[in-house]
């Protein structure tokens, strides 16, 4: 793995360069800013093109805090530029709707500016000025959250409605902002993995993996092949559990009590299997810089047997669920995400695949041992409803079980190291993995002695801005399915 090709351009031409890259078949995967101590900033647009990531980079010298908005030409950049405005105070000219997103601060307040050395003191949020009013006959807004009925992560949806039909949805995501990006800079690379595991708790392995791949690229080391297999096994177990959790939320919403109970039991058994394999129910501590922390704590052959038993029991219930009309009726035609919308935005993960778009990182830019294991991506039809997203997840659960068994099977009998020493050299890299929620990117910049900038770009952040697009003509009772079918982890949205 090597650093990406970098195209340098002026901030004034960034928008055109990104638009040109997209016309040539690229997809805007992220727009990331970094601050420097002298008051300057670097803007990096990350484009995903066939088989690789490319970076378009431009600098804003000290004192320059405005540039022509990328959003004006590429609407998918909207949330990125709002995030950059919140964290750095940079103003994209011509953005159109620069409301606070991840951290609402008063004008002129000190900004976190990750990348720069000096951190601000405790911030005070300015939430009273956030837009929330709607106009029109009989139209009103229902604020749903951040404390919601049930066990949910904190997020607020402003549901604009005339009574039953949801006309529009606004999403407020700042409540959980923890200052993760700055925190990364304060940690050594091998401790920073622990923080990566806590960015999105339901994608701990994926985050650790993406971060460690970046460190390994900067250190120019190759991970031992056995370690790569262990990484795949844990990443796929994580995918199974997280996809299953999405299905469980659907059954809860649909009142399928028995299915809900049984799937919860399967999920618990899977978590226990993960704990037996590594000592942690969410796979934390497995992925370390340069490899994995050690061999599985359970004999691979035994783990394969347990996995098989679990899969048979789980799939029997999932098959029954997918032939239960009272369940399917709730999902069919619900939360339509037209392929055109998904494509224009560059949707990722099961949300994209449910609309017939394939950009599975495991197949497009294989990492760990996916190439050796012969991974082939599966996509859904272009149906684009909650049911199709559910089908995609169920397909992937089956494929993941197979990958777990293959990875564990290939482990048996092999020998060699579990971990290579990885000391990151100076440079900037972007790495990607397919987290359960979709494409996860890490931009890591090191000056050779310390990490100066770490930016995780989660699929949750990227996809959540599409959520409002999936509410065309849907009503309140559909809300739970549309939300669950997006499978977003709120912790990963505002870092």
């Amino acid at each position, binding site marked *: 793995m090597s650093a990406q090709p970098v195209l340098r351009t002026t901030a004034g031409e960034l928008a055109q360069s990104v638009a040109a890259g997209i016309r040539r078949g690229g997809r805007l995967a992220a727009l990331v800013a970094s601050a420097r101590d002298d008051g300057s900033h670097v803007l990096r647009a990350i484009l995903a093109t066939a088989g690789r990531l490319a970076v378009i980079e431009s600098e804003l010298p000290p004192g320059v805090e405005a540039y022509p908005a990328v959003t004006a030409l590429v609407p998918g950049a909207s949330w990125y530029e709002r995030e950059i405005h919140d964290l750095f105070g940079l103003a994209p000219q011509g953005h159109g709707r620069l409301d606070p997103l991840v951290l609402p601060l008063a004008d002129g307040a000190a900004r976190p500016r990750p990348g720069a050395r000096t951190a601000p003191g405790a*911030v005070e949020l300015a939430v009273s000025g956030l837009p929330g009013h709607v106009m029109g006959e009989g139209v009103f807004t229902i604020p749903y959250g951040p*404390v919601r*009925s049930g066990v949910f992560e904190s997020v607020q949806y402003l549901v604009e409605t005339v009574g039953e039909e949801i006309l529009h949805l606004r999403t407020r995501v700042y409540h*959980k*902002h923890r200052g993760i990006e700055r925190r990364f800079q304060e940690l050594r690379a091998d401790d920073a993995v622990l923080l990566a595991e806590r960015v999105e708790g339901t994608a701990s392995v994926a985050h650790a993996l993406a971060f460690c791949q970046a460190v390994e690229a900067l250190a120019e080391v190759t991970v031992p092949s056995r370690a790569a297999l262990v990484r795949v096994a844990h990443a796929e177990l994580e995918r199974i559990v997280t996809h299953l959790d999405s299905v469980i939320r659907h059954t809860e919403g649909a009142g399928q009590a028995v299915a809900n109970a049984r799937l*919860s039991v399967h*999920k618990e058994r899977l978590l226990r299997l993960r704990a037996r394999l590594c000592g942690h129910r969410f796979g934390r501590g497995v992925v370390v810089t340069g490899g994995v922390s050690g061999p599985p704590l359970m004999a691979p052959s035994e783990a394969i047997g347990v996995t098989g038993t679990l899969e048979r029991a789980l799939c029997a219930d999932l098959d029954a669920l997918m032939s239960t009309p009272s369940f399917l009726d709730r999902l069919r035609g619900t939360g339509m995400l037209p392929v055109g919308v998904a494509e224009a935005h560059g949707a990722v993960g099961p949300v994209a695949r449910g609309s017939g778009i394939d950009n599975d990182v495991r197949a497009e830019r294989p990492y760990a041992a996916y190439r050796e294991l012969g991974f082939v991506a599966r996509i859904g039809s272009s149906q684009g409803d909650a049911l199709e997203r559910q089908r995609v997840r169920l397909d992937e659960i089956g494929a993941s079980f197979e990958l777990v068994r293959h990875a564990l099977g290939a482990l048996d009998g092999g020998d060699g190291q579990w971990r290579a020493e990885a000391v990151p050299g100076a440079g900037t890299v972007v790495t990607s993995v397919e987290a359960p929620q979709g494409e996860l990117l890490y931009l890591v910049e090191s000056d050779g002695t310390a990490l100066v900038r770490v930016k995780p770009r989660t699929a949750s952040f990227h996809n959540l801005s599409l959520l409002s697009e999936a509410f065309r003509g849907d009503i309140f009772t559909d809300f739970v399915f549309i939300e669950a079918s997006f499978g977003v982890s709120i912790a990963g949205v505002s870092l």
Partner: protein
Amino acid sequence: MPWVLRGLRDGIVTTGYPRRVDGYGAGFRGAVRVLEPEPDPSLTSGLPELCPTGAILVESAEARAVRIDRGRCILCGRCVGARPDLFAFDPLVEVATSSRRALVVPEEPDEDDEVRRIRVQLARRVRALRRSVHIRHLDAGSDGAEEAEIAALTGPIYDLERLGMFFTATPRHADVLLVTGTGTAGMADELRRTFEAMPDPKVVIACGTDATSGGLVGPSYSAGGGIAGLVPVDVFVPGSPPSPFSLLHGLLLAVGLLPVAGRSRC
């Protein structure tokens, strides 16, 4: 109809905890234990630096005691890997306490009395709740894993309702506030308002290392160093995230339903 029969397929899967020993805890890294609380002073250099969250405390040269603050520990195992002579994983999952100080282990001798006193006070306060406890969960900036473990409590294996405990949608019906996360700037007001909306008597549980101390994440410019600065906390459940058994232990402790003494039952 097929679902009715399917539902009977596995028989009873629910744990016997807390009335019976469950056994699952044995395979689980639930806590870190100090094997040698008073090692030779030459062995203690560099110990605090081992821990990324500062959970290893080495007292003054005279006392030279080594202790672990479970309220800061995220169970990463750095110390166990580097110094197996001093630290070990413990399959203990009954890690909840009613005093922040008691999370620092091994406990100091005078702490026992204090912990007992706090627990008696708490038990007196919650006496009316015991047979019907309603829980309001609130996320004050977690990483999302705590929510997954809390959600597991309502499943058939842990089945909270058999203990007379129920999740409720509104703080006005709630007796217990189960809080996850570091206490972020964006949730501070919501946390206080939720607490104030609850009727007395009420109990607050800090769920997880983040909620107890900020863990690896807080304090920062927007994350708190635990929720105790925002609302009064009665029970701390460390863990990153705490396992469902640890959560059950914390809930039972919070409402005075825990068998008084005895060995671990998980």
